[in-house]
């Protein structure tokens, strides 16, 4: 029978790279990404699943990495903000964020980018879809409308 343990072994693929680590069972995925893998682009804003800053993609679906234990991601593919640019070029979505001044302090931005990336990969979102999906993220600087504009333009670019 499975013996409960305070430590667990995990194997994950993050941004196309495989990692195997032994970690505390209580370690959240956000802390794992940041502290164990050094992927500090994922930010932690509330640690109770409300602000959305820590959102990453788990098997292509957005999820709060502060609401997951690392071990729950065992065997899964994870993508973080560090994966978005290709080579030395920002993704169209990232470029649209810059163009529309859709970030100020930048702390919440990775979360928005990851949820928006998943949304764009699923198809052609409407403005309502964008608001519905990204309402799960707080931004305290921009007042949001530039973020909506940025995602909308990125969606238009993808479809053209």
């Amino acid at each position, binding site marked *: 029978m499975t013996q409960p343990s305070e430590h667990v072994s995990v194997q994950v693929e993050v941004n196309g790279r495989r990692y195997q680590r032994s970690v505390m069972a209580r370690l959240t995925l956000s802390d794992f990404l*940041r502290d164990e893998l050094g992927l500090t*682009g994922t930010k932690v804003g509330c*640690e109770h699943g*409300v602000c959305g800053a820590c959102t990453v993609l788990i098997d292509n679906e957005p999820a709060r990495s502060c609401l997951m234990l690392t071990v729950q991601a065992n065997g899964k593919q994870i993508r973080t903000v560090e994966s*978005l640019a290709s080579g030395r070029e920002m993704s169209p979505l990232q470029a649209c964020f810059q163009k529309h*001044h859709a970030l100020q302090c*930048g*702390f919440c931005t990775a979360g928005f980018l990851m949820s928006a990336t998943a949304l764009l990969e699923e198809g052609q979102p409407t403005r309502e879809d964008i608001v519905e999906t990204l309402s799960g993220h707080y931004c305290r600087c921009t007042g*949001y409308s530039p973020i909506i504009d940025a995602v909308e333009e990125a969606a238009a670019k993808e479809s053209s």
Partner: protein
Amino acid sequence: MSFPHSQSPSIAARSIGARVPRGDDPRLLTGRGQYLADIVLPGELHACFVRSSAAHARITRVSIDEARALDGVVAVWTGEDAAKFCEGIVGELEVEGCFATTMPLLARDIVRYVGEPVAVVVAESRYVAEDGCDLVDVDYEPLEPVLHPRSALEGGPSANEELPDNVALRGGKVLGDVEGAFNNAARVIEATFHSGRLSAGPMETRGVIASYDWTSRRLRLWTGSQMPHYIKYCLTAYLGFPENECEVLTPDTGGGFGQKAHIFPEEMLLPLLARELDRPVKWVEDRRENLMTATHAHEQFIDIAYAFDSDARATGVRIRATGDGGAYHQPPWSMGVEPWCTAMVTPTGVYDIPAADLIYEAAATNKTPIGAYRGVGYMAGTLVRECLMDDAARAFELSPFDIRRRSVVREFPWTNPQGIVYDEGSWLQTIDELERMVDYTAFRERQAALRAEGRFIGLGLSVFVESSGESTAMGKAHDLGGIYHDTATVKMEPNGSVTVTIGLTTQGQGHRTTMAQVVADSLGVPLEAITVRAAESTTYGWGSGTVGSRGAVIAGGAVLRASNVIRTKLVALAASMLEADPADIDLVDGAAVVLGVPGSSVSIIDLATAVYFDQSAWPADFDPTLEATLAYDPARPIFSNGGHAMIVEVAPDTGFVTVEKVFSVEDCGTVINPDIVEGQIRGGVVQGIGAALLERLVYDDSGQLVTTTLLDYHMPSMDFSPPFEIHHLETPSSHTPGGIKGMGESGLIAAPAAVLNAVNDALSHTGTVLHNIPITPEQVLRALRG
């Protein structure tokens, strides 16, 4: 008295005014930002605080043995341990009638608010530090909590025995014939307002890392502070760290909004722990701590009355502003600045009101200390003034635009009864422009048509004048102590590239971009050749803090003054090389050109190279230093102005309020970068919508804070984001660099009044007028149901 550092050179706007994309963005968008928690020092320890669970109590026992024994715990300190090094941080506001308090680094004997730090556990990881905190056992003997500011000022138990009568601040002034104004008034419009307790809620919480090297006595302290030089000063003044070996570093910072413009006990404790434990110590505040302890904001009770003559002109004002201050003054802004500013600065606003009776007071209460949050003092003051203007409009049956036009100041310079001189402004034009943008007649028609269908929309107006570019002159004009000046260094290197360091930190405002625009226009070099470092370390420059809408003005002035030194040298050299009169040389598009002589030019790169490497090109007595550090502090107070009009809809089945559209007019003088100005407006307005409709820190009757998570403290999310229409007016300041004025706070200052007014307009058929924020759906539903 005039000082050289108050004089700003002139500048030709070329890059200034353009929508230049921010150079910071690719770094931040790709996850390369380095915020406090991203910094890892070798061997670092993690601190976590045991915080008071009682609002007011005597500590009878703190038991730390179990925590100390926990594997991985390195140290546990209580109030006694901290007091050996520092009795506490003294706070007060430099105005008449303020009484100081001393905030201990860790509570000793008595706790005075829920969340006050009682002990600190330092461990090998944050996880273990939290485990250790769970093992610290504190016994409390309850004392009566003081929770209501106005009754606290009338007597009863003390919230903090340093202030036995709970009076932390009390003062005021009577200016002009107030009695006459009210005795002769055709109407008096008055109300009592409550402006709710808020959290600035930056997305990145506070945090500190301290590292100490005993061999050099060198202390390095990382903190996302808006006032790093002030923090550094405190490290020496309170803790005795040698000033020359202290460095405060500010990494990328995830928003501040005034919350990070204070000195906090945690920032004082971490360096002591690092020194005593001989290892770096890190503390990253969690969200619960942030909501509980990182200063609260804006809460006031305000009685206000305006006298109007029969022409609906305001002739006098009476105000009593009472702050619910919390248990201590949080230095440097204290619990005083909020009610003081509301009473002493805002009641006249853009209106020519000759008589004013102004009372300010702040009560100590057993709550988290009140601190600064964007628009401190101005938001509540603008709320009450502008809301009563709309109440008056209804009483006089005038439009909200007309009632304001009756009293608005039309001629400048204008001196208000408080003696503050306003050099220029577009106060009337703001009202006219908003009326045009809203299309007032069409709005009223649409409102009537929708009402007939059982839908309720409303229009709210709010106009403001905002002190900006916080300066020594501004303080003096307001009888407020304090001296401000900030330096910038501009250095040109042999290939013509420029490095700029400013004494102001940045929390997302884009200073690196706007300051580069200023330098580009001063030196004629392309933006790509300019790097701006925004107070990343106190090693560079001096700064009085990114507060009071001062960043663009103050850093701009310092940068321009320093850059002008370089410019003068380049011009002299170019004049020598081109055999022209220096007065005929301009620096533009990467070259020094002789005006009126096409083809006569030399590139800035060649000039810079010549300064470093070609003595033969130099004119007589040339000093090749291409680096200058200068200070700036504007000679006179600077005021920006503007307004917002909002259309809201209230839902008859829930009382929910939706903001349909925001119209904003902003006059911050010369606009450096419209994208950034508009970003500040939208962000501030949405914070204001939050303050008006959602956000509220709530204490229960025992002084427990109820709203300790974001599940209970509701900030605006994207579905609360309205579309904006923004119009810029540009009335340049006559004495700032290029005529720029500050505007970082304007959105939050004026938006809540516009929301409240719009809701009251939507409810105008019900007879209910609301005077509290946040407006709850319940209040709206009650009003609709009669």
